[in-house]
């Protein structure tokens, strides 16, 4: 599977968003049904819980051409499985620290807690993240050259 690259001259980042089924995925729905707009460059991948996101998923997304990866989960304390997002929080903190340590731009990864009721927050978060990543430009450091066209 290849995340399609926009070949227009103007840089449009490719964003992968891992969204928890119980909150932010519904938040995205709400954003949609409330007719809130956010750029269409976000590819949402639904996961059962933010702690389902294996660091490999994030690296794979970058490998295949993502310019930014965002993980959205339930607010701490609100996890459908009680504690999943607490574990995710530690894992992602460490992983992001490592990516930074390896010289990968730290703004390319983000974790955001978005509940099912926060459609507006979802849209705003995505717009903001896209802005940040757009400023950074194309992800060149964590990319598999074989996947380049």
């Amino acid at each position: 599977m290849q995340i399609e690259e926009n070949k227009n001259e103007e840089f449009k980042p490719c964003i992968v968003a891992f969204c928890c089924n119980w909150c932010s995925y519904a938040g995205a729905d709400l954003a949609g049904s409330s007719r809130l707009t956010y750029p269409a460059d976000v590819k949402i991948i639904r996961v059962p819980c933010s702690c389902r996101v294996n660091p490999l998923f994030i690296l794979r997304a970058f490998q295949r051409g993502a310019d930014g990866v965002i993980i959205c989960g339930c607010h701490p304390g609100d996890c459908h499985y009680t504690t999943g997002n607490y574990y995710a929080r530690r894992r992602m903190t460490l992983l992001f620290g490592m990516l930074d340590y390896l010289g990968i731009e730290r703004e390319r990864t983000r974790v955001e807690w978005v509940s099912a009721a926060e459609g507006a927050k979802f849209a705003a978060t995505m717009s903001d993240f896209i802005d940040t990543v757009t400023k950074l430009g194309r992800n060149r450091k964590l990319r598999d050259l074989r996947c380049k066209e």
Partner: protein
Amino acid sequence: MLRLSADKLDKLFSAISDAKELYLPVEENGSSKFDKWSEETQVNLNRLNTVKSPKDLFFPQSEDLMRFKKEGKKITVDTPDENCKEFVVFGVRACDVKSIEVLDRVFLSEPVDTYYESKRKAATIVSLACSEPEESCFCNIFGIDATEPAADVSTWLADDYLYWEAKTEKGEALTESIKSVFEQAEDTSAVDAQKENVKAIIEKLPLSGLNLDYFKNNDMMDIFNSEKWDELYEACLGCGTCTFVCPTCQCYDIRDYDTGHGIVRYRCWDSCMYSDFTLMAGGQPRTTQKERFRQRFMHKLVYFPMNNDGEFSCVGCGRCVNKCPVRLNIAKVIRALGGEV
């Protein structure tokens, strides 16, 4: 014989690389490898062996074989160009020269591997005689003379001069093209003295006395069933270090990689030490590390000679001796099974 002052080596390298790409032992970031020469490269001709052997130039650790494109149900196969740019490898030790002969027996036997062949044809190999063998060396037991390396051109670094002697047509051609950097060596006594000296040193090296008779004179199944294997393999971690630093190991894997816009089929080095090497949907014929460990050495010391006129698939370069994380190696295997004279 020709010669050139050792402080003018850069001149030689730049003359060679004017016409062809030049690869030679390079020191980089705490490691060494055969790499392309440019004025900035840190050449190291004192290091006896690079970590990866020059086999990487003929049989790269990873190599694209072909590309597939799928359109609907249609598949098209796209293969890379067969022609390879001519290149020169400089500073290949006698053991590594021999290892390329071993690889030739595998890849140039029918059916010929054209990927290897094209690079092999494009290469001119310039060897460099050893002046300071180390304790891990045992090329002599395979009949290799470290002081008289084969290849297209042989060279010696002795007494601040590089002595140069073309041995084949390819070597003559290369010499002709860069003739101007050399002077005629009237006196080659420095080379002779070095040869004498190094031969005496080799006599004294701890592994020089290893004996291969056991592997020559015993039945394959007797060696295979030897009880010694039980003890030998014990510490083996099952990593692939020995395989990947080995100049003669030639096993490979073929894999497909979906790039999202076509499929690349590539091959890469593989190791018989890995548990998934022989794993099938239906089971695993080599169930423990013992079998895998035994396979590697049986192949080098017994199976390969059986198929190749008694030629061993080890050249005594000592890389596995130096690099094994737990210091197991072929020398230990030869000694444990076969003993010494």
